[in-house]
């Protein structure tokens, strides 16, 4: 038998968050090695918060991730509120929902525009695109700015929010600020639709590769779940309670990665925008559904490269939903509705949909409100095994295209997952 011989060694793949390596060895067509390696240095956050007061836990774990600090904050606050028996008001929840969508928008636009787009134009970064595709780049910058300024206005800062706390908010945005945001969200829907028109022309450039897998995300009765809900797996008939998260995630350690891997009903599963789209597409806004059709996305979609397209669909959904939430808050008015917190011993699990997928936090507190146990399960941990299995399915099919093309497809595959690698080695 004869075939290609090649070595692919991508050391610290670029345009992703964190450090990952790709290794492929093929001799005379025989595949010797395919490895997605994560050498990121572990940080031990679950051990760092032990002995810390419940008010300090969310600000510390926010530092797990610079891109999804708001998701970590909310997953943490939800777990702590569950442990302490704190119920937040409807308006507090509505404002949290806007802030969480803002982070998803920020992260998705960063990925679509700055990290993934250069692959379609065969350039190294977004900088050359400023000259060649100025209008589209400015559209991306405008949406990115809107997402970040929403975080500034509601959370007090773009990264690592300040105003978020157990039971509510340290401060609320002003009515004028909310009015201005509402108008910008409405404009943003139009901007995201324009961006979708451009991206639709690039869809044929996505590799034709599918691997059906298990898709896991949060699910809610009324709405496209992101702030709360139960666990939905595409392999299970019924949704599962959050308390069963360890049975779903089954984290384990492998030698090729400092970040743990996860599996449930199959050898791997997928979380993130595509998983949410596949499981919850019925709850998208009509405009977001139209965007999906325009991008050729129909559920279930089994091409992992389509994750970037599902992210864009979610941007449209996020902006439209935020405009609606802001309008309702303006109708009812904003006032302090913080829930008083009484310290008690207890445990709680919280979960939100971070930009990259379902994110679980669990804490146990003692009767002084000090943390005694913590567990955080990050979306990218739940995707690492899927990336490995995708690579194992992809390499045999495309190895005859030559080293350069194969390496490009593998790097693009990793980017499609939009991994948050340092987050996964928390």
């Amino acid at each position: 038998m004869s075939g290609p011989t090649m070595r692919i060694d991508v050391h610290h793949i670029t345009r992703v968050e964190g450090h990952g390596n790709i290794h492929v060895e093929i001799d005379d067509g025989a595949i010797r090695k395919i490895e997605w390696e994560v050498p990121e240095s572990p940080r031990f956050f679950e051990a760092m918060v032990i002995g810390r007061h419940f008010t300090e836990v969310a600000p510390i774990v926010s530092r797990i991730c610079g891109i999804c600090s708001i998701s970590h904050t909310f997953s943490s606050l939800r777990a702590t509120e569950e442990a302490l028996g704190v119920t937040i008001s409807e308006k507090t929840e509505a404002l949290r929902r806007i802030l969480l969508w803002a982070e998803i928008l920020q992260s998705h636009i960063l990925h679509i525009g700055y990290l993934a787009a250069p692959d379609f134009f065969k350039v190294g970064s977004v900088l050359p695109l400023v000259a060649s595709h100025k209008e589209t780049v400015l559209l991306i910058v405008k949406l990115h700015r809107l997402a970040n300024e929403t975080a500034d206005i509601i959370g007090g800062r773009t990264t690592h929010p300040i105003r978020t706390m157990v039971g509510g908010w340290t401060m609320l945005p002003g009515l004028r600020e909310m009015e201005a945001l509402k108008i910008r969200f409405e404009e943003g829907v139009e901007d995201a639709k324009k961006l979708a028109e451009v991206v639709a022309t690039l869809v044929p450039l996505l590799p034709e590769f599918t691997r059906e897998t298990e898709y896991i995300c949060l699910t809610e009765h009324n709405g496209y779940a992101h702030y709360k809900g139960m666990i939905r797996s595409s392999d299970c008939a019924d949704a599962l309670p959050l308390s069963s998260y360890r049975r779903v995630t089954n984290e384990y350690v492998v030698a090729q990665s400092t970040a743990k891997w996860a599996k449930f009903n199959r050898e791997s599963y997928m979380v993130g925008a595509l998983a949410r789209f596949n499981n919850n597409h019925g709850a998208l806004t009509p405009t977001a559904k139209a965007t999906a059709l325009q991008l050729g996305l129909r559920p279930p979609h089994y091409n992992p490269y389509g994750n970037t397209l599902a992210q864009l669909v979610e941007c449209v959904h996020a902006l439209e939903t935020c405009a609606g939430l802001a309008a309702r808050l303006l109708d009812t008015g904003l006032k302090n509705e913080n829930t008083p917190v009484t310290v008690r011993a207890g445990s709680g699990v919280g979960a939100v949909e971070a930009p990259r997928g379902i994110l679980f936090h669990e804490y146990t507190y003692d009767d002084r409100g000090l943390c005694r146990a913590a567990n955080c399960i990050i979306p990218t941990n739940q995707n690492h095994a899927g990336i490995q299995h995708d690579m194992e399915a992809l390499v045999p099919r495309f190895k005859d295209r030559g080293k350069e093309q194969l390496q490009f497809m593998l790097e693009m595959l990793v980017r499609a997952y939009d991994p948050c690698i340092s987050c996964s080695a928390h």
Partner: protein
Amino acid sequence: MKPRVAFFDFTCCEGCQLQIADLEEEIIGLAAIVDIVEFREVLTGSAAAYDIAFIEGSITRLADEERLKDIRRRSKILVEFGACAHLGGVNKLKNLRDATTVRREVYGDAWDMPHLNTLPTRAVHEVVTVDAAIPGCPINRQEFLTIVKALAMGLPPKLPDYPVCVECKKRDNVCLYDIGMVCLGPVTRAGCDAICPANRGACEGCRGLVPDPNNNSMKDVLAKNGISLDEIYRMFTMYAIDPEVFP
């Protein structure tokens, strides 16, 4: 010729690098005064030597120490960038506990696999010589631009040498101690425009101590407000300020 600038990340959340992307249109202005030759998170490319290297993250492994020393050798100016690089950041919290316990708590039975081994967390200047620091968790984007402009012109960058309280007064913020909160503003280096107190969040000391902090006045504030030793310890250790400074 424009200075060749590179960004590198070690153990951290990469949130400080993200602040560069968050400059939005101002990135184009930044690219006009410096030549960004290496920045793995957002661009593909590398270079052999750098005029200015920004180091994000703390140092927790031997291999990372070697990589940092190699970057140092190839850089004219090396800047520690963000609280993890500047102070060790929240990553130093693990240094306060027994290393084996920490590894067991996170990795369970697999705790002693060799690839999971790390050293106590160090700030960048605890490993190599640094020429400048940009504090903060995350960094302040405008302070970053000011410092880059100074470095590009060959000037020494300047950080404020007064505490966050000064900026708080300027913004007319309510003093958090007056509303029953605890805050490290009296001894923390300013430059963040008191962003946390302005949003009713305690200053966590992420920019490190101001030069010559007024320890006696800080002790008085803590005593007057009946802050317990446990609480003081937790406050000062979040960003690795030695709690022994305020016994």
